[in-house]
């Protein structure tokens, strides 16, 4: 029933000239994790800690999605597809937060 | 079968009813317009021998007209509503009487300030399923719930507000006529939901004084 990924894999290789830098990404993730842990315990005001940590977390998440999940090498509509639920998630949380 | 609302006895009741009637007019027109056109088309273009349907795929101007038209109408309705809503819900009246209405399965316990006119002192007294208010004087009821969600419903005064456990929700109203009104529970709250009724008694200022004194005496003993 399912067309084998042959031609599609081929396309992918056409776009991605050589293997992505998997281990480099891994290194960055590792360093970011360590940074996070230290940053969390610098006695900065809560707000700054939170923002800093969230930025780093999102950065890491983005790296995983882009390289390990190959989003970087997919057609643009895949990006749109993958990003579609995020606005809803934000709407839900923000709206309910205004309650309190 | 009536589309009229029962008479309302609160200061903002009139405004709420007005918006209701405005919407009734708008939707009424929209209703007869669209259903009328529908029925007319069904009759006018019913199948006849040799009739061939028009071959058209749409009309952009028409689309724009009814899109914009509807948008405008609902926008107006929205704007009208916002005014009343914020008057009813976002501003609490000054110099209002205050009571605590604490709901629990399946009764309303209303706590009155008592002698000192302050709630939360030991001379407060509590009545079961009885709300008492003074005519032409705003009153704020602080809604609490001990177990599940109930909803404080005064049909004749166009008041409805849920009482949520863990929250204290203020709701205010100002009765425009003395008399006895019904207090209902509008949120499903268990097997006794259907009989969680109370009464709202709206007194003249003098009557209220007398009643309050009597109650304080009774509480004293």
């Amino acid at each position, binding site marked *: 029933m399912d067309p084998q990924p042959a031609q599609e894999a081929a396309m992918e290789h056409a776009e991605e000239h050589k293997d992505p830098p998997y281990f480099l990404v891994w290194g960055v993730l590792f360093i970011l994790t360590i940074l996070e842990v230290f940053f969390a315990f610098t006695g900065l005001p809560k707000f700054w800690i939170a923002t800093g940590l969230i930025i780093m977390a999102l950065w890491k998440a983005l790296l995983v999605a882009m390289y390990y999940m190959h989003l970087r090498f997919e057609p643009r509509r895949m990006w749109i597809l993958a990003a579609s639920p995020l606005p809803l998630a934000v709407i839900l949380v923000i709206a309910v937060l205004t309650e309190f | 079968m009536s589309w009229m609302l029962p008479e309302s006895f609160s200061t903002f009741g009139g405004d709420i009813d007005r918006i209701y009637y405005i919407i009734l007019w708008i939707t009424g027109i929209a209703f007869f317009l669209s259903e009328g056109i529908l029925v007319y*088309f069904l009759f006018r273009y019913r199948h006849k021998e040799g009739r061939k349907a028009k071959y058209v795929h749409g009309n952009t101007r028409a689309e724009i007209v009814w899109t914009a038209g509807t948008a405008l109408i609902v926008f107006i309705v929205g704007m009208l509503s916002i005014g009343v809503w914020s008057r009813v819900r976002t501003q609490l009246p000054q110099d209002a009487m205050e009571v605590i209405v604490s709901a629990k399965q399946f009764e309303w316990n209303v706590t009155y300030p008592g002698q000192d006119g302050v709630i939360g002192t030991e001379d407060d007294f509590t009545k079961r399923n009885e709300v008492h208010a003074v005519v032409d004087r705003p009153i704020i009821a602080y809604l609490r719930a001990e177990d599940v969600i109930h909803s404080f419903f005064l049909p004749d005064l166009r008041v409805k507000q849920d009482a949520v456990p863990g929250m204290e929700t203020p709701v205010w109203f100002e009765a425009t006529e003395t008399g006895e009104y019904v207090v209902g529970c509008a949120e499903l709250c268990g097997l006794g939901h259907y009989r969680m009724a109370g009464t709202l008694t709206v007194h003249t200022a003098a009557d209220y004084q007398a009643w309050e004194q009597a109650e304080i005496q009774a509480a004293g003993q």
Partner: protein
Amino acid sequence: MSTAEAAIGDRTAAHEHVDHDIPFIRKYVFSTDHKTIAKQFMFMSLFFLVVGGLLAMMMRWQLGYPSQPMPGGAILPETMAPGGILLPEFYNSLVTMHGTIMIFFAIMPLLVGFFGNLLIPLQVGAPDMAFPRLNMASFWLAFPAGLLMLASFLVEGGAAGAGWTSYAPLSASGEYTGVYLGQQLWLVSLTILGFSSLAGAVNYITTVINWRAPGMTWFRLPLATWSLFITSILILLAIPILAGALIMLLFDQTIGTTFFLPAGGGEPLLWQHLFWFFGHPEVYILILPAMGIASDLIANGARKPIFGYHAMVLAIIGIAFLGWIVWGHHMFQSGMNPMLGTTFMVSTMFIAVPSAIKTFNWLGTLWGGDIHFTTPVLHGLAFVSMFIIGGLSGIFMASTPVDIYIHDTYFIVAHIHYVLFGGSLFAIFGGITFWFPKLFGTIMNERWGKIHWVLTMIFYNLVFFPMHSIGLQGHMRRLYDPTQYEYLEPLQPMNVFITISAFLLIAVQLIFVVNFFHSIWKGKKAGPNPWNANSLEWTVPSPPPHGNFATVPVVYRGPYEYSSPESDEDFLLQTTPPRDQQQPEPHATPAPEGA
């Protein structure tokens, strides 16, 4: 013509024999054929439709004749109706299960599980769903979920009784309702059903995106498929939120967490936010496919292209998008921040805009048509006229100040039924009659179909229209015995009237049941295209063979080319090659003459 018929003939023959290779169990029980799965969904949900209807009748009896023994009520056990008189807690279970079963186990599986499975592969020109086994799993999750839901009536403590919205804390702890196991079964059952819906959604989305036949561009898809596609996206993103909330509530019930229990610091309003963030998209899940089906029916009846096809598609998308930012309109009186209420009111109001686009485009489709009043078309028209009523009543509730008074009254109940019965269910009746040939190869009896339609229209309106009025008099919903409030006493005759009409309403549904089963066995045989329609499902025999299309169909035009000058009849199949290419493509499906 003979050639075409012949072609179809031997093609079916070929597939007949393929079919026979499949053992009974794989063919009818654990089948992976989308048409069989569609039938399974249909029979399951029609059964639940009947159950839901019967529950409604019990409610109506109690409301019409409060605390009087109902005829035959004696068969009910003591725990439900001692001496044939309903208990209040059992009434609450009735309301809850009626709402839950009708929404989750009747209308949703009918529109999405049944029509989705039947129509999507046929209308996009695919041999089957993208993931047939996943598709099978989808049904075999839904079915046990339904059984669990029914089983909750039998357990000790009775079925869930906190309303189909199961507001916490009432639903979060048995001590408030006396319902322990029943509520938990309710939660588990809906969670399982959620997985089923997700499996379906993944399948539909993938199939529509990837398995459209050559030439089937996005804007050549029939509106039924378009709406089912958008609906699947709603399901995909809304159901997980419900699942999360259900699981948290289940934990509150069983292992003693305190998400929604204020005693332990929880937030009752959080449940309402999560539920309605799912719940409002859910109600559009229940109307969008109906809109798509109605569009197909009306265009077919008017023998005219859909008026403003692109606008229709955009409206579907618009409704789906706006549906995500209006959930708060169910919580205006819940103690939610009033400012938030204002925002939700405005967004809710604007939902009227895409709905208006759709309504007026349906009217536009009828304008200048050559309207044949076949049963499916009548149901399509009923859908439009009833949806208008239900939609307009929505505007009242969308206005926050008015909602203060009508919230949780029968005005809401009237709204519910005008959109869900008058809307969704009429479209379902129409759809079943229209695509019946693709299910069983026969046509339903037109005369009895029309009679059923007329009587249903009459009694349906007699049941639900008065509910607006009693709602406006302040009649609360979920009320076991209205006569407890003496200001509701005067409404009692009206309640009796509604009850009697309700019994007549369900009685005339028997006509449909009989017509349905009679037509399966004794119905007139249908050709490939009995309604002279255009979309791909009408190019294959009725019922379509295993694998649907003998050769990959090639699509040359949109699905609504009725009365096109290009053809001599008043319809033009999507697969008929245009005049300028004289000979049809070698492997294009030849266009059979309409029967």
